[in-house]
């Protein structure tokens, strides 16, 4: 079976269960393809030989009742993996080997999957292009010198390039949905509290969520069902009734009310994004959904709010990197000097920038003007959604204001980079689930995504809408394997 890496997760699971293929055969194929794909720079740490060992072990005594039986999976390098280096894309964690496993990855291994390796990402998940990683930028399989988006850029590149059948990323302001949109893949940011944050390198704790990134909606639903569990080790994990998302998946969305927020029609939005949105509206109507115009009046305040809240939390979370107990340490004349040099040499420019913003907005005399103000506006943004959900079941928007851009194009202008997340950030601020599905191409042939935003804990509903629309859209990703010699 030479086309193993072309198969979706659901197909691979089915073939393993029918004993048409072994875990070792599948794992070998993904390892081979990953090895031939070094130019994408999707991996930070490869774990191929132990993946093959685990696959062989699985085949000796296969448990075919599991949800991911013997499936090789690479994960974003923000998830702590026991005894396997976890860097968060940073020099400061370059040599960090966790002594414990994140809950989300543990859930994946418990269902029979084996780890292929750790995937590249923006440093501490701070970025929208994967260019802030200490381990270099990642190539988008769609085209050479095109960013894959970020921060889960390695994850998006690996799924689109078929180096892994599926993966997980994390999303603080769009870090799953934006790279999914840029690479023609599906990415789900679950409701805050749905997936445990235990063992995920923290960026902004009130916004961070892990979620699946996949080739299609069904695979995405299956992985969400595996990773979403209540976890007492995360104090913000929420105990609610979780569906078996893949089993309950249906394309019958007749009569669902889908809201179209007029404020997402932002100034300077390219016509092709506007057209894509209209196309999405038509597809939703074709599926039997009812389209309703809604208003989310505080949308334009979401990014400024995010750029106070996220850096503030980051500056506090990243205080732990001091060169004492783990990670990189620079030599200093005394303790304070050691701290300051370690952090100055260990963190990259974007991370330092955000720590400085966060420290400033939390500092004496500025807390009320910035941080408290942002928390109040965050409330207004959440109220907008609460109000809208009195009238609709879900909201449809574009995922990003443009298609993927060239490597280096926005690197020196932080504000223009931040604008990438204009449609995704409000969802994190309100703690809601959002999914990006590929829906078309721009004039250059680069993929564009549509986002469906749901009510809190209503993942099933947005997965169903995505599933129904996916069928109508019938998107084909244009991957030419240009990087394989």
């Amino acid at each position: 079976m030479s086309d193993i890496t072309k198969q979706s997760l659901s197909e691979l699971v089915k073939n393993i269960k029918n004993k048409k293929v072994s875990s070792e055969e599948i794992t070998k194929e993904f390892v081979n393809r990953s090895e031939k794909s070094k130019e994408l720079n999707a991996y930070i740490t490869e774990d191929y030989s132990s993946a093959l060992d685990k696959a062989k072990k699985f085949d000796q005594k296969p448990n075919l009742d599991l949800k991911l039986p013997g499936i090789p999976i690479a994960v974003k390098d923000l998830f702590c993996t026991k005894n396997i280096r976890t860097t968060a894309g940073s020099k400061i964690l370059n040599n960090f080997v966790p002594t414990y496993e994140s809950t989300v990855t543990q859930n994946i291994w418990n269902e029979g999957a084996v780890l292929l390796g750790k995937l590249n990402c923006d440093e501490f998940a701070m970025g929208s292009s994967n260019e802030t990683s200490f381990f270099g930028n990642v190539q988008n399989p769609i085209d050479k010198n095109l960013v894959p988006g970020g921060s889960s850029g390695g994850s998006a590149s690996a799924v689109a390039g078929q180096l892994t059948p599926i993966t997980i990323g994390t999303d603080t302001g769009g870090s799953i949905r934006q790279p999914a949109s840029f690479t023609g893949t599906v990415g789900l940011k679950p409701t805050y509290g749905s997936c445990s944050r235990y063992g995920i390198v923290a960026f902004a704790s009130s916004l961070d969520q892990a979620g699946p990134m996949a080739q299609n909606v069904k695979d995405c639903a299956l992985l969400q069902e595996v990773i979403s569990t209540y976890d007492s080790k995360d104090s913000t994990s929420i105990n609610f009734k979780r569906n078996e998302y893949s089993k309950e998946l249906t394309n019958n969305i007749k009569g669902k009310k889908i809201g179209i927020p007029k404020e997402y029609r932002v100034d300077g939005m390219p016509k092709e994004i506007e057209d894509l949105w209209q196309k999405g509206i038509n597809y939703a109507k074709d599926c039997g959904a009812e389209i309703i115009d809604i208003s989310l009046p505080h949308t334009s305040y979401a990014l400024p709010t995010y750029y106070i809240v996220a850096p503030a939390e980051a500056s506090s979370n990243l205080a732990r990197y001091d060169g004492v107990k783990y990670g990189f340490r620079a030599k200093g004349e005394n303790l304070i000097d050691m701290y300051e040099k370690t952090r100055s040499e260990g963190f990259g420019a974007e991370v330092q920038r955000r720590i400085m913003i966060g420290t400033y907005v939390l500092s004496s005399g500025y807390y009320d003007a910035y941080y408290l103000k942002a928390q109040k506006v965050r409330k207004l943004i959440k109220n907008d959604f609460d109000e809208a959900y009195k009238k609709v079941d879900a909201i449809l928007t574009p995922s990003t204001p443009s298609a993927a851009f060239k490597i280096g194009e926005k690197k020196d202008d932080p504000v223009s980079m931040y604008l990438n997340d204009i449609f995704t950030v409000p969802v994190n601020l309100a703690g809601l689930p959002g999914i990006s599905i590929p829906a078309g191409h721009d004039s250059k042939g680069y993929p564009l995504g549509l986002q469906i935003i749901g009510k809190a804990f209503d993942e099933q509903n947005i997965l169903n809408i995505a599933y129904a629309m996916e069928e109508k859209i019938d998107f084909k990703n244009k991957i030419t394997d240009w990087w394989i010699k």
Partner: protein
Amino acid sequence: MSIDLKTIKHISKLSRISVDDQKAEKLANDLNSIFKFIEKLNELKTDKVLPLTSVAETSLKLRSDEVKSNNIREQIVKNSPQDNEDYFVVPKVIE
């Protein structure tokens, strides 16, 4: 409002990130453009709005204080940048 070099130096002290003059200048520029964009929030009147501190509307739970991972000292100390069997080593702090 603009962030000057003196403020940058002050924040860098608070952040424990050493910053030389060249880096301070670059940071001042970046932060000023970011704060110009953040100032938009001042358009909103929020006197009567309660701040949102968590979207997860649950109260914090208590759990029993039990040790669940035993005898991992060696593994933990192994991650320390400066080798020592039993302790984390830092530059001398007491004369």
